[in-house]
């Protein structure tokens, strides 16, 4: 099988690292990974995405992805770092696909300038109306409780793992963190990873 995952958000939110952690988990299982992401000018507060395609090498060549880009209507999971950006990517979700989304809007400077901020709740409502399997993560609460503004990526990965949307266990994700992230940040990242599961208890 091939698992198609889209991560989306705003430049600087940590989508690339989250994408790298998922890739690491998949590689450890002997899966083939392809990914594509936004790098460069768009980093500066622009919309960013990662396309991730994980495929079992046991399947026939013709069923494996030819390239890293995901076609509309075939993504199994959207990991949304920002409500508006998640709606933007929704056409990529397959029928019955899962969405894990942060509730916290990032206002573009242009909106602040014009005094016309958009409302996250409208985006979340749209997602509720169109996604059968939706998990909304209260990011403001999560970031406050974990005590860092920079771990949204791990909080979302944890939520996806808890909801069985990712196909990787907490332990596999912790291994990936150990491999890819400086030891100084391990405890903080483990805490962020487990926040969602603990918040349900």
């Amino acid at each position: 099988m091939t698992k198609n995952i889209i991560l989306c958000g705003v430049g600087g939110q940590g989508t690339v690292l989250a994408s790298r952690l998922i890739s690491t988990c998949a590689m450890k299982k002997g899966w083939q990974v392809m990914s594509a992401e936004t790098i460069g000018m768009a980093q500066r507060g622009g919309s960013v995405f990662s396309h991730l395609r994980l495929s079992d090498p046991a399947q026939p060549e013709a069923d494996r992805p030819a390239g890293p880009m995901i076609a509309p209507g075939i993504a199994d999971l959207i990991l949304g770092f920002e409500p508006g950006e998640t709606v933007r990517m929704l056409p990529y979700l397959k029928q019955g696909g899962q969405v894990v989304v942060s509730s916290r809007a990032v206002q573009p400077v242009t909106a602040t300038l014009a005094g016309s901020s958009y409302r996250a709740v409208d985006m979340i409502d749209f997602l509720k109306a169109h996604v059968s399997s939706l998990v909304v993560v209260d990011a403001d609460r999560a970031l406050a409780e974990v005590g860092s503004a920079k771990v949204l990526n791990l909080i979302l990965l944890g939520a996806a793992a808890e909801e069985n949307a990712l196909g990787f266990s907490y332990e596999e994700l912790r291994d990936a963190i150990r491999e890819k992230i400086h030891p100084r940040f391990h405890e903080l990242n483990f805490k962020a990873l487990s926040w969602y599961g603990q918040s349900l208890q």
Partner: protein
Amino acid sequence: MHQEFLMGNEAIAMGAIAAGVNLVCGYPGTPSTEVLETVAKHRGPDCYVEWSVNEKVAMEIAGGAAYAGARALVTMKQMGLNVASDPLMCLSYIGVKGGLVVLVADDPGPISSQTEQDSRTFAAFAKVPVFDPSGAQEAYEMIQDAFEFSEKYQTPVFLRPTTRVSHGYASISVKDPEEYTIHTPEGFVKDSSRWVIFPRLSTINHKKIEERNAQLRHVLSDYDKNCILRDQPDAARSQNQPDEASAPQPRRGLAAGGFNFTYALESLRALKSRPEAPLLKVATPFPFPEDLALQFLEDLDEVLCIEELDPVIERELTYLCGKYHLKTRILGKLSGHMPLSGENNLAAVQKAIADFLEVALPAAEALELPSLPVRPPVLCAGCPHRASFYAVKQAMKGEKTIYCGDIGCYTLGNAMPLDMVDTCLCMGAGLGIAQAIHHLEKDTFCFAFVGDSTFFASAIPSVVNAVYNQAEMTLIVLDNSTTAMTGHQPHPGTGRTMMGEVVAAVSIEQVLKGIGLTCVKTVDPLDHALAVETVKDTARQPGVKAIIFKSPCIAITRPSGRVMVDAAACIGCRKCIRELGCPALLFENGKALIDTAQCTGCGLCSQNCPVQAIQPEGGSGND
């Protein structure tokens, strides 16, 4: 061999190392930058690597290395190829001894470039072969092929990935270090009949190049990465399809190259077309694999070409149909079947192929999206460029001015509310434009803004020109001590090299003084009052004068702290938001609010608050 998860650019770098590359140089430019950085990280002790001051110098260094029999790689983006074109065109005629690969990354879209030029077309113009990889694995293998090819035919060779190849990641098979080629250069051997270009030599070599390239159209037809894919997918899949071939259908095929090959293949698989349309994969768009293409065209009535930027494959196939009197219709950009500009995407290619093959697209529910926030890129919170632009804007209020911008993060100074970029053309061009306006409009204060890396890359001759030709202009050097937009590469002003040495930094101030400027001031733009006074004073001096706004990029320094809004003191005038456009400034419940996750404590907003409502966190008063 072992598996590694690599970015396309990293794969190219590891391929170059596996091919025994001896020297790598280049100039940063999206999407090419990571190639050289990866070589620097993984190179062996015998491989020299540098960021050169610009692409022309880099091309000359790589050319010189190849003269000495070394394997050399020079990296740049497509815009950089323009800068390097002078030595490139001559190198094409002179030829090389060691392999010389020019890594030139194209940017369909464009996503971060001024033009959508196609380096495949440039290769044909320069008469050098070009390899066009479709993904990371192929790029890894192709650069090794390219070195062999360059040496065998004694010509520079292009490797031309596009953004999605350069920045896509894949798990690929790479060689173990024991499998690497060790290339020992012979050294430079004097032979002025070979290495000194004179008109007579050019005439002789021009003929040889044309003959060689004609020959390569046959040779490259046997290159395994140029190929025709036919009917290979499994039969079970086809049997599920209703047989619609009752009426004789035109025989149709697809042709694609580079990353677009993956779009075409993926689309064919998704559409489950039957009979499977043959797919011509063009890995060397110049010289074009003529024999292979002819074999492909032979049994087809119609061909759709899937490519970005120029219709290179479409023109070649059309030419072949004329040359061999074939009735095959060639469709693509020129025929109106594919978009003339911009980046392709899977959905659009899939639809174009479905229409062409007259097969149904997989049913998809059309989703009406609500209106979504627009997010143009902006200067980061705390970016010193914002302070520099704002200081000039405040100082020159009410005066007739022109603000000539340049290429880099500071191009973003054009956005509202700063609106401080009147022109932007190409690297270094702002200085020329400012001089021109001075010669035509004597009452205009002419400003040229240039970054520190851009200053070294392409501004210095223009400063000399301005001084010599008696222009009046103010040069603003935005010195943030790095090449920021492309991801923080060192440059001559930083005093660090890619070999890891700490060296004497070249001083921008001393360079300007050496050229003859008598008024050169260095100011911290985050000291707003001083910055404004300096601009007011400097702009009114005669001749060419310069201000160096020196403050490091926020991405390479630790934030100095944060500011916060005293909600009781804030009168909700929105001046901070209206004038600065900092992404860390928000407005809620009638008051300004600082996004603590973004604020770096630069203090520009607190210096400009009319009621001193913005103060450093945990302190009182400015600074």
